[in-house]
């Protein structure tokens, strides 16, 4: 039966309260993920699973590990770790394991026997060449779900040998061709959108494959190309090309589906103005000077542009809220960091890490009332959890581990910024 009016907001305040999260169960508890990946596409996939409670074992090649460790904004390292590496590797167990020697492969196969999911983003076919690809893993572990993330897919003319980064996918998919201004070159998104978008798609397919496994007991391989992931996001680009034979063009900051909705310059910043239909266009036209309610044409990009240019961002937002169209400020990382709304939602959150102390992060976007996601700890140096994983999980003795360290099958961090623990910490 219908509840009391307004009760949903009260329910939501209680049900999603970030302070209650530590006491709640995790959605993916009991799922173990092996990550053999570097940079962003693979690590972000595993990160998204880890945020919701999967146990992620990140397998890195000792002693330098994931090359993302050395991607540092303006060359800046904090406590010997790059902030760009931190944000991709929450809640993970870090092991240093070389998959080239036979003993390394065998250790990996043993880890896989105890795992549910493998995520990799090496060049297509590399894991198979090394003898630890899907076909080899499923011999011993038919229930394994294997996500093969790559630029161009595991098969097809471009699959062999071609490497790919985020911007490869932005470029070859057509995404950049429709981003930016018509009289300017195509614009590369300044963040690694071609990696994250594909990573989220990979993590989504992994959950679908786990649902299928529940019914059949069988795992499977997922082949995801990051370029194809970006192609899938380009909405009406493809039916437009198919029906008109033409390229969709760059349209600058105005959304060609909802003109004059777009991003506009104000006196003190930028604002997004949005009008989805007549119900919003009429008040918008009125705000920018129409005298007759029928004159929605008055809400042209020029008029809206002039209206915003002479006002502050908060004025435009307030006028929109009073009048009945929509507006929101263009915000950046500094705004997010200080935003009480995002803090209250746990979307910007603090984690008290045993090695680094307080680290602030973006938390998980979907808020689940019963089994919420969370950031439990931050990224760690190469091999930080070797004893925990090889000892506790695989049951190896200290002597066995030492022997493998001597043979360089397993190992820990190189003594360089990015790989090693903070100065003065006692591992």
């Amino acid at each position, binding site marked *: 039966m219908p*509840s009391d009016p307004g*009760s*949903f*907001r009260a329910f939501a305040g209680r049900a999603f309260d970030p302070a209650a999260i530590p006491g709640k169960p995790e959605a993916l508890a009991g799922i173990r993920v092996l990550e053999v990946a570097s940079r962003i596409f693979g690590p972000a996939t595993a990160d998204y699973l880890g945020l919701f409670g999967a146990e992620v074992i990140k397998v890195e090649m000792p002693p330098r590990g994931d090359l993302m460790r050395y*991607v540092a*904004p303006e060359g*800046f390292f904090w406590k010997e770790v*790059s*902030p*760009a590496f*931190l944000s991709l590797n929450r809640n993970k167990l870090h092991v240093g394991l070389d998959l080239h020697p036979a003993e390394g492969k065998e250790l990996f196969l043993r880890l896989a026997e105890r795992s549910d999911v493998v995520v990799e983003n090496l060049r297509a076919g590399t894991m198979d060449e090394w003898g630890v690809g899907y*076909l080899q893993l499923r011999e011993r572990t038919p229930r394994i779900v294997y996500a093969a993330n790559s630029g161009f897919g595991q*098969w*097809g*003319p*471009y699959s062999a040998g071609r*490497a790919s980064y985020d911007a490869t996918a932005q*470029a070859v*998919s057509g995404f950049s061709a429709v*981003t*930016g201004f018509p009289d300017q*070159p*195509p614009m590369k998104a*300044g*963040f690694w959108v071609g990696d994250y978008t594909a990573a989220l*798609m990979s993590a*989504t*397919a992994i959950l*679908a494959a786990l649902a299928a496994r529940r019914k*059949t007991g*069988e795992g*499977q*391989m997922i*082949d995801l190309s990051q370029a194809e*992931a970006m192609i*899938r996001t380009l909405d*009406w680009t493809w*039916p*437009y090309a198919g029906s008109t034979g033409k390229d969709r063009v760059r349209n*600058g*900051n105005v*959304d060609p589906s909802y003109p004059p909705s*777009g991003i506009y*310059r104000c006196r003190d910043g930028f604002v*997004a103005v*949005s009008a*989805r*239909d007549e119900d919003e266009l009429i008040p918008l036209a009125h705000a920018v000077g129409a005298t007759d309610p029928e004159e929605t044409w008055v809400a042209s990009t020029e008029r809206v542009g002039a209206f915003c240019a002479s006002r502050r961002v908060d004025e435009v937002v307030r006028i929109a809220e009073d009048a009945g169209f*929509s507006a929101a*400020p263009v*915000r*950046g*990382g500094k705004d*997010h960091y200080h935003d009480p*709304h995002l803090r209250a939602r746990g*979307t910007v959150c603090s984690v008290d890490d045993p090695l680094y102390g307080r680290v602030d*992060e973006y938390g998980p*976007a*979907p808020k689940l009332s019963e089994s919420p*996601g969370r950031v439990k700890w931050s990224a760690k140096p190469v091999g930080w959890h070797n004893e925990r994983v090889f000892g506790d999980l695989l049951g190896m003795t200290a002597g066995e581990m030492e022997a493998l360290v001597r043979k360089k099958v397993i190992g820990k961090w190189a003594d360089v910024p990015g790989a090693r623990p903070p100065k003065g910490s006692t591992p």
Partner: protein
Amino acid sequence: MSGFAGWARKATEPSVAAGKPEALEGIRVLEFCPGHFGGMVAASVLAEFGAEAIKVEPPDGDPLRLVAPEDILVAGTGLPFLSEARNRRFVTLDADNPAGRDLFRRLALSSDVIVTTESPERMEAMGCDYPSLRGERPGIVYLSLSTYGAFGPDASRPVRDSDILCQALSGAPYIVGEPERGDGTPLPHQAPTRLGNWHGGFVQGLWGAYGVLAALHFRAETGKGQAVDLSGAESLMMFADYNITWMHTGGKARERVGNFDPAVFPYTYIRCRDGYTFIAAYNDEAFDSLMHIIGRPELTRDPRFSTPKNRVALENERALLEILEEWSGDRTADEILGAVEEYTSKRGGPGAAVVTGRVNRPLETLSEEHWRERGCFLRSRDPVYGELLLAAPPWKMSGTPARWKSGCRPPGSDNRDVYLGILGMTEEEYRRMAEAGTF
């Protein structure tokens, strides 16, 4: 094709998908997202994995059908709606009328997942908010999508959710686009720049589907349903790199730098004879490779470029771009790819990490054989909407492949099927409701 690639092709080719089982078979998703693209994406993604999706539209059709860039309408429906209207049944009902609300509630109580973009207040008034439904259906998973989310100080802000609002708040446009030069009035393009597609809406839908799948996993373990609250702004925000960690550790915010990058370089688009191509070679070994490829090996010892840190100083990025374009200007993107592949095939490890790829216009992407072979696009045929070119589901899966099964149908096409087949309505009841304008 070699052993593994050959096996992978045979196991995952979209043409063999139809005979295989589906991952989410047996999960029913009810989509109530009038005028909203992100909600459609959430339902589409679940439906591509095999969930049974039912889209509820007002009797005269979803307002998103009328959104028509360049005024292109196909049988009254615009291309954005047509691009995402897949694998679902289309029912209509009048949610402003008590009989229609009752119908909606019956549908909701027969579903596993609700996806809605309507306000909590409206859903409450319909008796179909999460607290109302879970009493009768405790396993229900209830996804609500909005700009700001359902709780927190800004949750009640009066906006109607859209891609541009979510993009603006997400921090994405803030770091896309050309900076101002500080020499007079900025030009229009020297501004935070929107992603040209509806990436905000798309990512909102994708995180929504992910949240639902995590909740369904939990339900399979415990029997418990739950509510999933998702802000579209926060969805894209999660992709905004190291914004927060850098603020926290270094007190710095990312700013826009055009096609440059504050953390990796070279990592940019370079002009070539037939347009632009992407080039990346940012670790020392890869940079050494690239300098050999362009015939300037001495530059690895140039103090401006000799370390990753020096290479990401903005003035050095500009200087290096100029050097790269001297080389690339009279070569085609394919020639650049050939030169890179020839050199890197002889090097392993980090030295092979020179990466390139042409900045394709959509028609150029469509002309490439690779995507055709991989079944990346499909042509749907429908008596009403004719032939349409669409992006296929991107996942190739060996066991339960995602797949495209059906395209757009007119509003209410599946009313009879759904109302008789799922709700068990009699012919008489159906006729009465149709006559009363309930759907």
